[in-house]
């Protein structure tokens, strides 16, 4: 038995089997939740490349699986990422079971997780771009299953992901032709340009991010959040692989400057545009753009410890967007819209979703005592030393986003109606949101709680620690 079979092939096979159970919603969801939880448990408990004695028998899970001359490698230091990916998948499965109408998600959700793990494990790491494209194609089927207003955002998404994959694969060939410390400046510029375009399309960097708010408005927000967060996590790890493997790229001042500028523009525009939206789904989309911008800024600071900030932002982000998406989906289900006009006073009838939405929004905005605050503060401190303009962009973007969060609050409570019960009729979704809110508060109050996790996520990247 090898680790890639256990954490990639097995979940993929089970996912394919779960497609056959799509008409048995409960069984399919329970199957996928159990699958994800078992994967987390195995990632936490099983050692890789170590002999395990069980009575007379002994087992060893090898880290490598050869595939047509290339390899899939999951080493023990990668297991933290594997556990995180499947834990997130389990959280989303439970949330989708309580609220979403999708019958394909129980099959496709774990498959997306398995492909993310595959994208981290594949050697040469550039082939990860193809695996990420496969996730985008799965998302295409997932979103077209549900009748939406229009699916133009998804079509733009798949187009951009394909173009990104093409640029990254081509960049891989260019990189294979140069030394570890290239002297040809023209070749370096070409590589940086093509790499920038590849990641620009994949990560929805400015100006390629129009599909994000479009999809957030048109699709099931909770599933959209899952697909985008998973993909962004995979792409960020792919970016870290680039920096880990090419020292000249890691030390390139041009690249760092480009990342800082791009990230700053994303944070500023994402925050400002969110303040002008009349649809809560679109605010969710712009918040994702802004968060992406923060990650890009952290990547630009990789030579001064930015990688720890980058991994530190992952957990608070996932939690916040999870409970935010779930709350939005519940409003969407009740009111058939996320437009501001349709949601006047909607928060009064289900207080727990209002709480979830606001806590998540203000956590993303960086409100003190919430999960997003410690990393935001650390990023702001780091950036003001090396790139003060980026610091201003963060302040402006955050300001715009706070206006959007305030607008959401006033929209959801503005009515003459009396306040309803704290827990909504959908008890399971309410409980999940409540648990998420508690975690956001705990992470905000005790940031040291997950600092080890952030550090462990960096274990596969020796040069970035």
């Amino acid at each position, binding site marked *: 038995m090898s680790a890639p079979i256990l954490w990639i092939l097995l979940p993929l096979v089970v996912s394919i089997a779960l497609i056959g159970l799509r008409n048995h919603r409960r069984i399919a969801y329970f199957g996928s939740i159990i699958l994800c939880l078992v994967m987390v448990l195995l990632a936490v408990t099983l050692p890789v490349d170590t002999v395990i004695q069980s009575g007379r028998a002994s087992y060893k899970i090898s880290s490598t699986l050869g595939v047509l*001359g290339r390899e899939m490698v999951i080493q023990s230091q990668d297991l933290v990422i594997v556990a995180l990916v499947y834990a997130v998948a389990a959280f989303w499965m439970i949330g989708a079971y309580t609220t979403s109408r999708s019958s394909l998600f129980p099959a496709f959700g774990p498959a997306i997780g398995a492909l993310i793990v595959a994208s981290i494990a594949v050697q040469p790491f550039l082939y990860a771009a193809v695996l990420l494209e496969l996730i985008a194609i799965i998302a295409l089927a997932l979103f077209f299953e549900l009748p939406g207003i229009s699916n133009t955002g998804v079509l733009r998404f798949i187009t951009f992901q394909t173009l990104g994959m093409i640029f990254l694969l081509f960049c891989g060939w260019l990189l294979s032709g140069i030394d570890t410390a290239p002297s040809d400046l023209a070749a370096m510029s070409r590589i940086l340009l093509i790499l920038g375009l590849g990641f620009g399309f994949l990560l929805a960097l400015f100006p390629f991010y129009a599909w994000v708010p479009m999809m957030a408005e048109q699709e099931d927000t909770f599933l959209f959040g899952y697909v985008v967060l998973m993909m962004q996590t995979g792409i960020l790890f792919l970016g870290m692989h680039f920096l880990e493997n090419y020292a000249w790229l890691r030390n390139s001042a041009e690249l760092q400057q480009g990342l800082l500028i791009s990230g700053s523009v994303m944070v500023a525009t994402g925050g400002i545009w969110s303040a002008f939206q009349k649809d809560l789904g679109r605010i969710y989309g712009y918040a994702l753009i802004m968060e992406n911008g923060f990650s890009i800024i952290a990547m630009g600071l990789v030579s001064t410890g930015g990688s720890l900030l980058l991994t530190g932002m992952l957990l608070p982000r996932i939690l916040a967007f999870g409970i935010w998406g779930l709350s939005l989906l519940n409003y969407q289900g009740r009111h058939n819209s996320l437009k501001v006009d349709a949601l006047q006073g909607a928060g009064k009838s289900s207080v727990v979703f209002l709480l979830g939405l606001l806590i998540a929004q203000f956590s993303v905005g960086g409100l003190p005592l919430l999960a997003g605050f410690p990393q935001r503060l650390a990023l702001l401190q780091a950036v003001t030393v090396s790139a003060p303009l980026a610091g201003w962009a963060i302040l402006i973007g955050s300001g715009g986003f706070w206006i959007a969060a305030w607008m959401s609050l006033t929209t959801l409570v503005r009515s003459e109606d009396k306040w309803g019960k704290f827990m909504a009729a959908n008890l399971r979704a309410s409980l999940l949101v409540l648990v998420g809110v508690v975690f956001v508060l705990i992470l905000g109050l005790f940031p040291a709680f997950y600092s080890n996790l952030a550090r462990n996520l960096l274990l596969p990247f020796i040069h970035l620690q």
Partner: protein
Amino acid sequence: MPVFLLAFLVVLLAVGCLFVAYRSDWRGMVTALALFYFVQFVIVLYSSSPLMALVDLALGWGSVGIIAFTFLNIKPRLPEQAVAGGVSFRVISSFFFILSGFALSFTASYWITQLPFLHLAAGIILMLAGVLNLNFYHQPWQVILSILIVLAGFEIIEYGLENSLLLVLLIGLVKGSLSLALAFIIRREAGRMTP
């Protein structure tokens, strides 16, 4: 690879691209895609290994087969919609894009020295034609077929540079998944249109 054969294949691709611009229905696009995969097969056969070329052709035509089979078995017909102008506008734009493809290949041949100019031109023309179609058409099936055209162009260049059967299989998986997703979408849309 003989230059005259490569030149003939490039002309064939260019004509195929003009045909896609002229015929925006599924039969035209799927036929052109099948032709593109055949041209790709011949180029990869000469520039890489016969196994890679064969696997690539099988996966490409398999994808085309899935799409064609789905279209033939659905009722009612899905709408065809070209946003930017009429036939003449599309054909003239495609013609200029083909010329741009040649110009771009000329520049690219200075830094991709491993491939002959016409090989590069074949890939770049196809990619540009796909990108142009992405701007012309907004129906899901038209967009996905255009993406497949872009991918076909990319494959022509990539397989000339990188000799990896795994990459052929992975991109083949992408093509197959795209055509399966397209088959799913077509069936859903046709189901929604049925009264």
